[in-house]
């Protein structure tokens, strides 16, 4: 099922949580809504589900205007952050709930509901736990039951709110791989919310990066990582270093000298240069480069982080060097970013 969010705005008590958000999701895609807390990602998910009504704008499922429909009519599978399993029901009853509450004509017989429940338990690899109560399950198992329950109603769209938020790191990684497998096996259009960029980049076909109620960038993991389109995305996804620069006639200047990077389209004036600390080339002679004095050097796992003072110590910038690299011993290092981007300086 294709999902289209068209110019949606949402206000809570006149305070805007989403400003004019539009998003097209293809059928069968696995989409991550990624952003810091307060970016509006959960609000967007709840709007798609029908748990909230948009202040303006529409949401389409295929050609159908879903914003006119109640949450029951939308037929979405929603997995809540804290699972919201019904604690007085067994695992099997939880999974069968969506089928049990169907109106008479479309409600499967009891035996059929039981069969579906145990089929779904097999799918989420919890066979044999039908009679357990949610309190008797671990966090990871509850998560799986919640997903099975959401899938039992044959949803048109699967929506997950911070699906791994309450789990420890080990279980998170396992479940992440497992969710991808389930998605590939069932082909549901799936949207999940996360604040964990690693999770989003690893799992999703496309990542929607959100900040302050707006969509900053939509793209594959490669696109948002390699070609971030805003300072926010640069800073939020992956490591980044930034340096205030000046653009003059398509050339980038740091302080009083050009650094050998050309940006023909950028307007003249103050700007900020963004690059990845590991994506640089070290230079011997400085014929157009960024040069700085080593201010600090730290060992971080398999690499060495070096903090450089640029232009007489006023600016600090971080780069990454291989452990064995001779430059790590030097007091002065010259380098040039391999992949980079300049954004006009913001007035602030």
């Amino acid at each position, binding site marked *: 099922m294709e999902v289209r969010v068209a110019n949606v705005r949402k206000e809570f008590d006149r305070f805007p949580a989403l400003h004019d958000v539009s998003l097209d999701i293809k059928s069968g895609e696995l989409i991550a809504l990624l952003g810091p807390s307060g970016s509006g990602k959960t609000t967007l998910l709840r709007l798609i*589900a029908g*748990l909230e009504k948009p202040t303006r704008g529409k949401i389409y499922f295929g050609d159908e205007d879903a914003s006119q429909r109640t949450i029951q009519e939308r037929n*979405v599978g929603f997995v809540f952050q804290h699972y*919201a399993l*019904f604690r*007085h029901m067994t695992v099997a009853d939880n999974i069968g*709930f969506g089928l049990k*509450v169907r109106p008479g004509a479309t409600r499967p017989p009891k035996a059929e509901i039981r069969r579906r429940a145990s089929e779904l338990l097999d799918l989420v690899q919890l066979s044999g736990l039908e009679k357990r109560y*949610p309190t008797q399950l671990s966090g990871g198992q509850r998560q799986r039951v919640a997903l099975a329950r959401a899938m039992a109603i044959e949803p048109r769209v699967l929506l997950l709110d911070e699906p791994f938020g309450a789990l420890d790191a080990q279980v998170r990684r396992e479940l992440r791989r497992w969710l991808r497998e389930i998605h590939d096996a069932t082909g549901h259009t799936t949207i999940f919310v996360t604040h964990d960029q690693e999770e989003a980049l690893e799992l999703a076909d496309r990542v929607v990066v959100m900040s302050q109620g707006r969509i900053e960038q939509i793209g594959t993991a490669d696109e948002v990582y390699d070609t971030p389109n805003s300072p926010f995305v640069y800073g939020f996804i992956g490591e980044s270093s930034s340096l205030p620069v000046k653009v003059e006639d398509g050339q980038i200047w740091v302080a009083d000298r050009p650094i050998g990077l050309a940006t023909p389209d950028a307007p003249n004036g103050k700007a900020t240069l963004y690059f990845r600390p590991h994506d640089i080339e070290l230079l011997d002679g400085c014929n157009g480069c960024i040069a700085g004095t080593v201010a600090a050097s730290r060992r971080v796992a398999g690499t060495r982080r070096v903090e450089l003072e640029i232009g007489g110590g006023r600016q600090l910038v971080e780069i990454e060097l291989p452990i064995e690299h001779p430059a790590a011993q030097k007091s002065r290092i010259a380098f040039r970013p391999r992949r980079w981007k300049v954004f006009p300086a913001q007035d602030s």
Partner: protein
Amino acid sequence: MVDLSYTAAADTSPASTVSATTEGRTTRWALLALALVFLAVFLLLPLVLVFAEAFKRGWAPYFDTIIDPDTISAIRLTLLVAAIAVPLNLVFGVAAAWAIAKFEFKGKAFLTTLIDLPFSVSPVISGLVYVLLFGANSVLGPWLKSYGIEILFAVPGIVLATIFVTFPFVARELIPLMQEQGTGDEEAALSLGANGWQTFWYVTLPNIKWGLLYGVLLCNARAMGEFGAVSVVSGHIRGLTNTMPLHVEILYNEYNAVGAFAVASLLAGLALVTLVLKTILEIRYGHAIAASRGH
């Protein structure tokens, strides 16, 4: 430094294994004794006295009082009033608690205060309000009387006064419970296609059933035992508008101590049954009760 190493060595002695929140033996015994003496003097002793007085002259006078038509009628009226007031307060209580715990609306704080009103107002005043509303000099009283409806000094007045006094029990029990549980389970049920009624019946009600039952038991105990408000509106007509507590008073004022205490022992018995029921439920379903209060 020397002191520190000394403390570390002393850590192996039994005294230092006592946790920080535990008091010494003397303090514990003193507190326990105080609580027990208080309970014995103010709760247990009166209860024992009620039964002792009731059976002072043996079983025969006791049963004579119980099978007296006026007593039977009082018992019947008390049960009738409870049978009307408790279900109504169950419905009102759940509705009010639902509204307060699950919705945001203007005047919520006011509604919460209003629910507490019967607790903070003297029962006599609660009764007087109905006298003012439905009495001979009121607006409503004569008008209703012209249609043949008697409120004051009749069963409807007693029921109204009892509902008023016992209103907070169910709501007060449920509001914190429902607030703590939030709306997550309801949202889950709705997203799975359940309609409002199914959500209430299959999800909300099971989540609150123990709190609800507890509220109903308390409500019932008070409905049967209410004296002040009912006394004002009842008119004390023997065999017609006398409830058990009122009947106890009448018998006592007639110097019929055995009769008064016999009826009182019945009331006390009802209270004990309520307590025992509650305890059995807690033992039998302790796990489920704990679970319904959150993971």
